[in-house]
């Protein structure tokens, strides 16, 4: 056991409150005089709003009604751009776009009123697929439906084709995915002419909401206060969308002068809020007889929905991860985010990387198949080594040993024996059961892409009290992933105090500095590091004042704080983000140090396919990764297990059914996430860190990247069919099996 807190599986600090029901979520909160808000949304994908009618036997004079005309400032949801309005004004660009807001003291009255607002439209043509968006026969955004276009890579792919020993092409698709956090989105807003706007709710990024609300109300940041309540999961779904619901609640509060609560039910949450971007990837590859990659030409397209929101950054992460942890001298990644008429797709664990990694890792297996080689062998031929450069020209400085990673995964999964046994079984059986085993190798960059962390310029603060307690001030939110706990561990080690003397302050823009958004697997690595520095600043001040010796224990720390407060009234340690030395990113050419660290992984899935029903069961899952320093093994393991389960869902269960741009299966009964019975044993291990002085790399998103290709590769091994898309539903697999049977 390590002597500090870091590296130990200390229990979740808020765990007791959550399991006993003491934790307060936004819907548990009642504010005196509060109204309930509801949102009237578009029922068509695109069109002009001709008229709004308020009908039915309802007390309309008691109901607060707000439309675009009531927005005091600019009617825009400020994010990367400002193309998305808070409320549709004259035109709607997707189904479920908010048009009218209502509020009333009686929740049921407002719900009934919501159903009696009738909107008249003059419909316009809409776009419902990536292909239609690219064809641009109907243009729904800009001049060509393209939000963002990047080109990345190195070498010259076009010079390779003529002499290449082998070439293989393929097209791969991935579907939308719902985050399905347990707690649906919700906010309570209050407005006071002097204090401004205060919003409390379920969210990941308090400062994003503040940034979005300022222009809506024409208020300065100190008049817009955002407080995070206990939050029942986010997975990216509470990254950007909460700005909208916060804006809505705040607008109703502004208009009514009363507190307003808006809490979505599951149907509204699933139909109206963001999903993972659907994608389509075309890969053309050249390789030699051994499987060594000579060229990768990748055309990667994601569907951004009706507004730009975060699509450019989702696209950039997908682009950078598209060529995987492989060395290839000639790579071209041409990528686009396109507009369609669905609600905007948004942040979701993995953030573009799972999409492009799925395509590549499926393609690597197809190369192996084509050459008649083992899929492991083909990957080994190409794994990045220390000192080599990735497809965007980043030199891998760490002493990476991906062969070792793969060895461990294969050993734990009993790959060799199983692969052989399954081959024999499948070749000899006359029964309906087929078995397969498949793998994927991948990496995930920690933190914001490129210069993102520099632009964020995050800050964190640690305060010491006279009693020797430490208060952690950061905007990073606890959303079930363990932020409070790992922050306590990191600060506890930096100050040599027990973690029960550390209080992680509730994220509230009135009190905590902007440590950046809780996204991109950055909290532990980037903010954790800032907190260690801020704690060191506290220690430095105590030592500078002669209160603390060079080595100390908890009691000496307390005594030092007491001594400090004899002639001070505060003890504040600060840290501001400083980019690591020698790191450079060229945003224009997409070259350079894309991320300051990568987590590396090899995942193996074993599956059973019942050919009578084409049902796929994942029987066993091995997830081996190198994540640098592990702050809390149980929490880290939980992140991996949860991510794997969520990714298995994306791979074989979670099918967002679209009907005219609207989700047709927005309930838990028809949007199918895997249950415990559908989830295999997930065997997680963390490899000894590659680097002698490891950092704590991000791990929240990593486990979302690898399972889908590993599972589909296993299905291909089991059945001999060649599935190219996720979710691979039994209906699709049955068609593939039927076609295969007819062909034989």
């Amino acid at each position: 056991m390590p002597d500090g807190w870091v590296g130990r599986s200390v229990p979740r600090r808020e765990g007791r409150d959550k399991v006993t029901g003491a934790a307060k979520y936004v819907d548990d909160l009642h504010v005196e005089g509060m109204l309930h808000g509801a949102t009237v949304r578009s029922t068509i994908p695109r069109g002009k709003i001709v008229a709004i009618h308020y009908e039915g036997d309802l007390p309309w004079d008691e109901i607060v009604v707000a439309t675009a005309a009531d927005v005091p400032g600019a009617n825009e949801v400020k994010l990367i751009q400002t193309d998305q309005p808070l409320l549709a004004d004259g035109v709607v660009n997707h189904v479920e776009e908010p048009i009218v807001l209502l509020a009333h003291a009686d929740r049921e009255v407002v719900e009934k009123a919501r159903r009696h607002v009738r909107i008249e439209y003059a419909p316009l043509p809409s776009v419902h697929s990536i292909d239609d968006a690219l064809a641009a026969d109907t243009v729904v955004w800009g001049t060509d439906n393209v939000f963002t276009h990047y080109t990345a890579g190195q070498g010259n792919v076009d010079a390779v084709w003529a002499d290449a020993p082998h070439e293989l092409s393929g097209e791969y698709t991935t579907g939308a995915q719902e985050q399905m956090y347990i707690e649906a989105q919700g906010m309570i807003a209050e407005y006071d002419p002097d204090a401004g706007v205060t919003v409390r709710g379920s969210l990941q990024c308090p400062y994003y909401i503040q940034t979005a609300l300022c222009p809506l109300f024409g208020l300065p940041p100190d008049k817009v206060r955002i407080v995070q309540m206990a939050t029942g999961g986010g997975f990216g779904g509470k990254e950007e969308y909460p700005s909208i619901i916060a804006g809505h609640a705040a607008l109703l509060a502004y208009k009514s002068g009363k507190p307003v609560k808006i809490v979505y039910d599951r149907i509204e949450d699933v139909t109206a809020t963001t999903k993972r971007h659907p994608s389509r990837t075309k890969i053309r590859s050249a390789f030699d007889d051994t499987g060594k990659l000579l060229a990768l030409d990748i055309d990667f397209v994601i569907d951004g929905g009706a507004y730009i929101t975060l699509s450019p950054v989702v696209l950039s992460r997908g682009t950078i991860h598209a060529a995987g942890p492989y060395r290839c001298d000639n790579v071209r990644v041409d990528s686009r985010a396109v507009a369609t008429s669905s609600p905007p797709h948004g942040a979701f664990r993995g953030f573009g990387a799972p999409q492009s990694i799925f395509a590549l890792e499926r393609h690597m297996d197809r190369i192996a198949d084509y050459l008649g080689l083992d899929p492991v062998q083909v990957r080994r031929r190409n794994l990045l080594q220390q000192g080599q450069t990735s497809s965007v020209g980043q030199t891998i400085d760490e002493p990476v040993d991906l062969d070792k990673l793969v060895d461990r995964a294969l050993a734990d999964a009993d790959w060799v024996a199983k692969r052989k046994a399954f081959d024999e079984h499948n070749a000899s059986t006359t029964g309906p059961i087929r078995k397969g085993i498949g793998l994927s190798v991948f990496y995930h960059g920690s933190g914001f892409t490129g210069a993102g962390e520099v632009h964020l310029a995050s800050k964190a603060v640690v305060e010491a009290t006279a009693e020797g307690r430490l208060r952690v001030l950061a905007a990073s939110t606890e959303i079930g992933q363990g932020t409070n706990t790992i922050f306590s561990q990191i600060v506890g080690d930096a100050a040599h105090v027990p973690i029960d003397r550390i209080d992680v302050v509730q994220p509230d823009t009135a009190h905590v500095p902007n440590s950046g958004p809780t996204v991109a697997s950055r909290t532990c690595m980037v903010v954790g590091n800032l907190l260690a520095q801020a704690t060191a600043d506290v220690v430095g001040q105590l030592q500078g004042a002669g209160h603390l010796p060079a080595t100390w224990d908890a009691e000496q720390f307390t005594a030092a704080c007491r001594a400090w407060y004899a002639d001070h009234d505060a003890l504040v340690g600060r840290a501001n983000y400083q980019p690591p030395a020698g790191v450079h990113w060229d945003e224009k050419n997409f070259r350079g140090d894309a991320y300051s660290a990568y987590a590396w992984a090899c995942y193996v899935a074993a599956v059973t396919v019942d050919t009578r029903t084409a049902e796929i069961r994942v029987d066993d899952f091995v997830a081996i990764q190198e994540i640098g320093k592990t702050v809390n093994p149980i929490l880290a393991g939980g992140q991996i297990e949860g991510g794997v389960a969520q990714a298995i869902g994306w791979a074989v269960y979670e099918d967002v059914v679209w009907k005219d741009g609207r989700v047709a299966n927005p309930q838990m009964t028809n949007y199918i996430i895997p249950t415990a019975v559908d989830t295999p044993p997930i065997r997680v291990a963390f490899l000894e860190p590659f680097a002698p002085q490891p950092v704590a790399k991000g791990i929240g998103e990593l486990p979302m990247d690898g399972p889908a290709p590993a599972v589909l590769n296993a299905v291909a091994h089991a059945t001999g069919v060649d599935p190219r898309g996720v979710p691979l539903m039994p209906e699709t697999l049955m068609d593939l099996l039927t076609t295969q049977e007819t062909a034989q």
Partner: protein
Amino acid sequence: MRGYLPDYELRAPASVDEALETMAQAPGQWRPLAGGTDVMVELAAGKLPPGKFLSIWQLPELRGITLDDDHAILGALTTYSDVRDHAGMAAEYPMLVQAARESGAIAIQNRGTLGGNIVNASPAADSPPALLAYGAQIELASVRGRRWVDYRGFHTGYKQMGRQPDELLTRIRMPRTPGGAGALHDYRKVGTRKAQAISKVCLAALGRLDDGKVAYLRAGVGSVAPVPLDLVKTEAALLGKTLDAATIDAAVAVAEAEVTPIDDIRSTARYRAVVSRNLVRDFLTALAAGETGARVHD
């Protein structure tokens, strides 16, 4: 919650007679409310038409499972948990127990009733195929009296059934030792996942061979027609036949012609047709191979 509660009226009668009186006074206006596991979902989704509801959950006369010489008799309020907990059910009606085990989760199994499952009349419901295979009858009661009708034929079209607007379903009965000793009971639910799933296809088949010939055969299928479907033609095509490969092929073709599945948000018509064909073939193959008792699918 999308329902507007003031639009609904709820009454809780003290006895079955009082319930029947209430239903008789305004036939078709009072909708029984048993466990509420179908009704409450519609309410929350804003899809429940406003109206009057008659809670029957509190009526002990509608509960309980008894076995007499000829029948197993189940009150309409028999829950899935009741079925699972009853030793006699497991011994003679394993397919009904299997249906109960695979319906919803424990909370739903504690509330959801067989009567509700039948009258809700979803083609995707999981107990009807088993009830059809076991040759169940149901008792319908009104102020005009009580009558037993064959469950087979009760569903006449999508959500249409042979129940008068003032009738309450009170009991369900199934013959003892269904299919005879040595019968094969094969229940297979193909859902959207392993638990907490609605069926895409669900087959309950009961068969017995005597001297290598099909002496008994009854099968119900869910989610492949507007009603829980009986494979009557398939049964007729097989009775008295020796189960060789050609007979099985022919029977599978008959079964395929009997089902009329559709595309919906859960699955496709094509998938349902292929799977129901495969499940029928699989059952007949097992029967031909001499399997008896309850088949186990993990």
